[in-house]
């Protein structure tokens, strides 16, 4: 006897919700596990001291600085380029061959795995351009990696601004650039900000690409050409080499807290954006 559709639905829905619960459970489990093991070792000292004996003791201060430098610089480079590209694609040109080519380039770029970016950064920035394993090489490599994301989110944010606003701006005597900066960008800014914040999060998490370009020196970087170890890479080395589990957990905790914070920021920005453009 075939089960009735209503029964089938009940079974399927229960199965689906189970899947959903399992997925959310995994996320919660990961976060709690890391924080539970790491928070006890997370102290102010840990955040401000330098590592000793290869990370067995001491803190992660140089890694925090290194991460901020590499990720921060990457976003600082990629954001203006990405937003400018998005502005060009939406406001300064019509859909056609050129825009299709630019979009194709950006789409392809977004699919390339991080290890390939690492290879490229190593060969191009570190060796050919002579920057060596450094904050700068790492930042430039990461900038290329996050560029497509910034372009895409900026484009969406700009397109969400109602067309009528543009006509109103022209109607009271603005140039195109004035309209773009004072009306469109003003409304699109939270949406663009979300993309930038998410890219920052991605840069902070990234390991494979920085491993090959920013190096793994333990010392505090003083200039852009110094090599530096990021938090994510430090965590990888600590856990894989078995150097210090407590420190590994603590490092991971810093990472997770930073990512959580950034995601919250992105979420809050997104909500402001939706409210503004309504």
């Amino acid at each position, binding site marked *: 006897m075939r089960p009735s*559709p*209503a029964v*089938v*639905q009940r079974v399927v*829905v229960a*199965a*689906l*919700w189970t*899947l*959903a619960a*399992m*997925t*959310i459970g995994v996320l919660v489990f*990961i976060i709690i*596990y*890391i924080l539970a093991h790491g928070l006890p070792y997370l102290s102010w000292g840990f955040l401000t001291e330098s590592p000793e004996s290869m990370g067995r003791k001491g803190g992660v201060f140089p890694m925090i600085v290194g991460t901020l430098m590499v990720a921060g610089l990457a976003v600082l480079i990629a954001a203006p*380029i990405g937003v*400018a*590209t998005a502005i*060009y*694609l939406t406001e*300064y*040109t019509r859909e056609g061959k050129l825009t299709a080519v630019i979009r*194709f*380039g950006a*789409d*392809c*770029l977004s*699919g*390339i*795995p*991080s*290890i*390939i*970016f*690492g*290879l*490229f950064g190593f060969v*191009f920035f570190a060796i050919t351009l002579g920057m060596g394993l450094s904050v700068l090489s790492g930042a430039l490599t990461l900038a290329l990696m996050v*560029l497509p994301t910034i*372009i895409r989110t900026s484009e969406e944010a700009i397109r969400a601004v109602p067309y009528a606003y543009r006509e109103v701006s022209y109607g009271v005597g603005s*140039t*195109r*650039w004035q309209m773009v900066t004072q009306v469109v960008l003003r409304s699109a800014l939270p949406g663009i900000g979300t993309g930038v914040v998410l890219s920052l999060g*991605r840069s902070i*998490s990234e*390991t*494979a690409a920085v491993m*090959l370009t920013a190096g793994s020196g333990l010392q505090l970087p003083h200039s852009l050409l110094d090599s530096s170890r990021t938090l*994510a890479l430090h*965590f*990888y080395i600590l*856990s*894989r080499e078995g150097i210090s589990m407590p420190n*590994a957990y603590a490092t991971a905790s810093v*990472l*997770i807290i930073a*990512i959580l914070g950034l*995601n919250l920021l*992105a979420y809050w920005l997104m909500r402001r954006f939706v409210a503004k453009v309504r």
Partner: protein
Amino acid sequence: MKQDKVISAILLIVALSAISGLALITVFIFKEGLPVILRIGGQQFFLSSKWEPSTGHFGIFSMIVGSMVVTVGAMVIGIIFGLGLAIVLTQFSPPGLAAVIKPTIELLAGIPSVVYGFMGVVTLVPLIREHLGGPGLSVLAASVVLGIMVLPTITSISVDALQAVPRLYFEGSIALGATRWQTTYMVMLKAAKSGIVAAVILGMGRAIGETMAVIMVAGNSLKLPHSILDPVRTLTSNIALEMGYASGDHRQALFATGVTLFVIIMVLNSIALAVSRFRPQRGGVR
């Protein structure tokens, strides 16, 4: 107006940076990697599973198999959970709950790959070793970890595809007396098919490209895997593990591995883009 033209030109130059970046990457990777492939010969490079840099043997076949096997496993998990989640979110979830689930998925996507790998090593690998046998560092472990990592991608693109289905289709089906589930699999999924396929293909690209997590849980053995409990090495792991100390031919061979990876992913991404572009033209349920 003059000023407008100047600004337009400046923006165009900046916009072309996206293309030039891609072009640069393609050029350099191929420049470094192609010579080795040509010198050793395609058959030897791609079909031999003997990878012994010290004696000059560079065959990546076992790594190609490794990448493929791990990816297939990851997709099984990724599709079941990712698509399932997308269906729950769009078809069966009250809006309040959806607003909670969505950020959770985005959060999942934000966790660093090294943390995923680490969690795999600390919880999953021992579990496999004790209950299923083998070293624990295995195809299975890598598939599970990767599956979890790619499911946010599959979920978010599938959600977009499902939400793009005209509400009329849904209402029409319900009006004919179908249950929500019947509507989902008979109408909604079919209508969103090309978007979902694109989601899966993009997820595949992500899985193949993942490096750090795989290194930590897959075992990195150079032997061809015979069961899912065997350790395995992927193309990405190969590059990451040996790049640090490779030189000369060895380094070129790693670039050649990169070339292989690059081509595979470009092909996958092009298919995904082509499939997802079909969506607006088609329009029909079929």
